[in-house]
């Protein structure tokens, strides 16, 4: 997380090891899904907090901003290319798997708005990633409520604000 002037921005990267703890490789799961004609989806969720102190600490830290970014990956069999869509717009096309995977599992720097830097506040960012090797379209997506093998969500990771 970076502070430039009063603007806050953050980057998030999903490490394959988070997924590997389950005994499978996230990269391989995503590629297998794409090669099978399916799509994969990754959601980056970021929350910017201001720490509360004194009696207000009882009520918890204050949520200043929240952003969610969805990235959907697919494989174009005609072009033999991997494509990444964000907000239904193609943001990248890749012929090489490694380039595609790097782009898919990471979120480029994203603007989180401005904060009042002069107030001496203590800010931090929470981020987590929700990964679906197979993006399941509605109404089939109801099965995600019942299966732990369809959606992989990381715990919240905290990052301090660095000017």
């Amino acid at each position, binding site marked *: 997380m970076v502070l430039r002037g009063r603007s806050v921005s953050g980057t998030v990267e999903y490490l394959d090891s988070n997924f590997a703890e389950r005994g499978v490789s996230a990269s391989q799961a995503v590629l297998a899904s794409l090669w099978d004609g399916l799509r994969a989806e990754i959601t980056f969720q970021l929350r910017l907090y201001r720490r509360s102190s004194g009696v207000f600490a009882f009520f918890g830290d204050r949520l200043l901003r929240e952003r969610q970014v969805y990235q959907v990956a697919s494989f174009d069999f005609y072009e033999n290319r991997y494509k990444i869509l964000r907000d239904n717009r193609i943001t990248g096309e890749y012929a090489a798997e490694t380039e595609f995977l790097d782009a898919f599992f990471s979120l480029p720097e994203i603007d989180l708005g401005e904060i009042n830097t002069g107030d001496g506040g203590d800010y931090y960012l929470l981020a987590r990633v929700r990964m679906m090797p197979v993006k399941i379209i509605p*109404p089939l997506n109801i*099965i995600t*409520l019942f*299966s732990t093998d369809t959606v992989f969500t990381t715990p919240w990771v905290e990052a301090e604000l660095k000017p």
Partner: protein
Amino acid sequence: MRAFHSSTTSVGLLVLVLIFILLIALIVVFSHQILVDLAQVDAQANIVAYVVAIAFPLILLGLIVFQIVRLIRERATGKPGSRLKSRLIMFFVLIALLSSIPQALLSVNFVNSAINFWLEARIGEALRGGLSISLEYYRGTVESLRTFNSSSMMSFILEDLNRNPERLWKNVRTVNSDIQFIQVFDADGSELLFRGEPRGRLRSLGAFDGGTGDLPKEDREDASILRNAAVYELDGGQYTVVVGRLMPEGFDSKASSLTESLEIFSQLNRYKRLFRLVLIFFYFFFSLPIFLLSILVSFLLTEEIIRPIVNLEDATRRVAEGDFSFRILSRSADELSHLVGSFNRMVSELSHSREKLKQSEKISAWQEIAQRLAHEIKNPLTPIKLSAQRILKKYSADAEAESGSPAGGEFQKVLQASVSSIVREVDSLNDLLVEFREFARLPMPRLQSIHLREPVEEVAQMYRNLSTEVIIDSSHISEDSVIRADPGQIRQVLANLIRNAVQAMPKGGEVSIRSAVVNKGDRRFCRIWIKDSGAGIPEEIRGRVFEPYFTSKADGAGLGLAIVERIVFDHDGNIWFETQEDVGTTFIIDLPLGFAEA
């Protein structure tokens, strides 16, 4: 009058139906929400969905358990209707189960069949085959462009670039008819030649300047374009040759549709076991609240159905215990309401008959007393009167014989006054006994159909002659007031009531007599109002007005209204009064209607 409410009202049922529809709508909306939205991303929204989804059936289940416990308690305490209620609820639940089980089996079977049909292997093979064919076509086209553009033949064809461009294009088409356009750029990227399909024309080489190979497919609204670029050295110059073709119209959309179909198929196929279980789970998940709701509604409906029956049973028990004051109120118009109406009429008639019987017994008792009094007192009265007259006569004769002149002493004066008093009181007692005898010998009425106007006018005229201070208005007797009555007894009733009214207004006033036909249940009566503008009946004596030998007058025997009541009862009628002090009294009589003469 105490009353039960028997309300299987349409409003109540409407409310129940509305609640049912509302809850069904909620379930439908909720299911839609779950199916489409909630499952997508937001875990917190999912938690809300879980809570609502679990809470709703639990609330319904809780309400049903509460109702069951209440029913068990009602049965244990022997509350009327609890057994019938249990049976009805079991009946409703049985019906709900009988309709739900086959429906559930059919639905599960349908889901299984549908999933098996969708995921039939040949459908997957067909989809993959379709994709494979389209890919082969696509790749074949790309390969064709690539092969042609990299072939040695192109060097010879390009020799016509400056000499004869038309021949160049003709040769290209001759060698490879798939190529729909050719574009040649010089080393600076300036276009030297373009022939063929205008849509394939590049404005500039751009990023591909100097490159060799397949250009990215250009997706346009009306077509998608495949291109291949190659660099040739010719006459010391360097040229970039782009050849290409447009894909058939609709190729992209069909290819996209094929890809999406394959995606859906692959998803279904990958998770088919889970998907089948989830569908079945959701079927029961959404059916269960509706089933529970049906049971809950059956509790409420049963309550509504048995309420009039329970009320009827309770009212019957109270009537059997002698309480005739109960009536059941019903606002519905069904068979139960008719039953309630019949019951109310029956109780009313029973009460009326009971009152008449009591009154009749009372009157009979008084008649017997009157008979005995008349008999016992009448006999000694004549000797008393004769003896007193004889004493006076004998004393007067003896005194006159002794003195030779008519008796005129002090004693004689006292004696004369005393004897006169005895004779007067004996005469008064005699009159009283005549009334007693009349009351005691009141005969059964000889009924015939008469118009009320005749006796009313006759009696009213008689009292108009007797009293000039009182106005008697009898002009409001309705034309249809034909009664079935004994004319003599009805005259007696009217005479008694009009006399009382006249006497209630010593300083003058108005007596108004009017009539109308009224319906009481399924019977029709002629209602007669006799209204005076007197002082009204004091509250403390209102309850004793019809009692025999009760009078507020100095010279009355107290039999007038008793006789009136007796006659009205004997005519199967009814009499009561409304009074207000300093305003007046109205006696109201209902007499059965007679048959008007044609």
